[in-house]
């Protein structure tokens, strides 16, 4: 403890926009004057109206604005989705280590985990998986990435299927995975040999700064904290 900082600070940030993308996702944009985060870093949002701290992965930023991609999942995200512009939230971040993989990168994401992949370099190839079609999100990703494939579970395909269809993985230098535990397990247990694979782990977050020790996960080198040792871990390190 007296832990590593990662440029993290606590700010009171104003909401500058809430953009509804679908029945599942919305974008929450906040005014932000702090450090521009790295891919995989996250922020912890708190407010007296929220029943727990809400950790959100960095999605994108531009000109003093920080935008998060939020998946609706109950009362807390519902509260965030209805915030008017000018509303103030406590924002702690950027938290965690971030992803340092070299290009060209293969990004594999499912559900709300796709958010972390948006900040990868444009020459990355990105595979996304959603439960239902996400037209707006797909459009945003297509505008940024030349190489994009999307699987929709409703239509019988998952992002793991897309990964298994990839014929030449040797052209990538590194891989970043982010998504539900089932997706990460399926990739890890598959026969696919990924180049330098890393995974972004999620956990219930208390403090975001290595203090409360609540976000502990098992790794091959012992127990680690998602908030300060992660959230990005080498895939072979994590015990799922």
């Amino acid at each position: 403890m007296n832990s590593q900082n990662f440029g993290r600070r606590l700010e009171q940030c104003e909401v500058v926009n809430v953009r509804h993308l679908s029945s599942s996702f919305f974008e929450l944009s906040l005014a932000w004057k702090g450090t521009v985060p790295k891919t995989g870093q996250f922020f912890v949002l708190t407010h007296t109206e929220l029943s727990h701290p809400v950790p959100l992965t960095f999605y994108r930023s531009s000109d003093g604005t920080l935008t998060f991609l939020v998946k609706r999942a109950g009362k807390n995200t519902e509260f965030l989705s209805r915030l008017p512009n000018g509303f103030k939230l406590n924002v702690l971040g950027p938290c965690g280590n971030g992803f340092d993989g070299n290009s060209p990168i293969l990004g594999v994401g499912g559900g709300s985990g796709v958010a972390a992949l948006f900040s990868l370099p444009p020459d990355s190839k990105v595979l996304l998986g959603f439960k239902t079609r996400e037209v707006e999100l797909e459009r945003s990703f297509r505008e940024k990435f030349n190489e994009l494939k999307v699987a929709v579970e409703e239509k019988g395909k998952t992002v793991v299927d897309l990964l298994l269809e990839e014929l030449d993985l040797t052209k990538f230098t590194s891989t970043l995975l982010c998504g539900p535990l089932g997706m990460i397990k399926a990739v890890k247990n598959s026969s696919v040999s990924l180049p330098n694979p890393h995974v972004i782990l999620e956990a219930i977050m208390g403090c975001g700064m290595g203090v409360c020790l609540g976000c502990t996960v098992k790794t091959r080198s012992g127990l680690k904290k998602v908030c300060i040792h992660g959230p990005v871990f080498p895939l072979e390190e994590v015990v799922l």
Partner: protein
Amino acid sequence: MNLSVTVGNVHLRTPFLPASGVFGFGDPLFTPGFPLDGLGGVITKGVTLKPREGNPPPRLFFGENYALNSIGLENPGATEALELINKIPKEYPIIVNVSGSSVEEIVETVKVLKGSRADCFEINLSCPNVKRGGLSLFSPVTVGELERRLREVTNIPLWFKIPPTIDPVGFGAALERTRGKRKITLVVSNTLPVAPMKGGKFLFPNKWCGYSGEVLHMLNLRTIKLLRDNFPYVEVVACGGIRSWEEALNYRLVGAKAVEIGRGFLLNPRIFSEMYRKALEYLLNSGTTWEEVEEID
């Protein structure tokens, strides 16, 4: 107006303290942007003699009006903790939370840590989620024995953090038989020991965990009121379910001299500053001070 207060021979900047486990070894003091103008002092993470890995994950769960934790006293051990304690900025009084599997381990831990800048030791006899020590070590006799043994090794003030699952009058009477009516400071309380289940399984691998939240606040108001009414020489620091100035004031009205905030700090990192302002406003309007707030009947 000055909100400083002295509790169990420890002079606090304000009556508002972070409960052990949410403030590390003063880590938020090293993170830019935390408004800490209402912070009364620092209570450290619980320290044991040797490093402990803590419980397997998952360790934390948040409900609508409560949180559950099963951290299991993960800490770097007394020797490394001493270094971390000594890095805490000097302007804050430091209360070092100490745990152990036995009376002996607690005494040995204090022997190491008395060489730090600790202004007080908060002896944790109430951790609900470790297999040995913690809650299982708790009894009025142990409190008396530890007090005697620790007084042989240090003059640094002692607070004893007790579980919420006591019969306040029975406990107070037993404590009185053990050590007489000498002044003592009790922290009421640690989290409530529970064993939540989901889908036919215990929620945490360790089965037991600690509940903090609204119910604990109500339970502790009763405990503190009964302790103060029957054993006025017992000084109380309240802990449990504080999310705003209102709960802190409730605790003061039943006789607590200071309060500790755990979950409330995780949910609102500005709580110390906000509480400080609300307290000043209330006390100025009431024409009183924190220490002079009249306890209710």
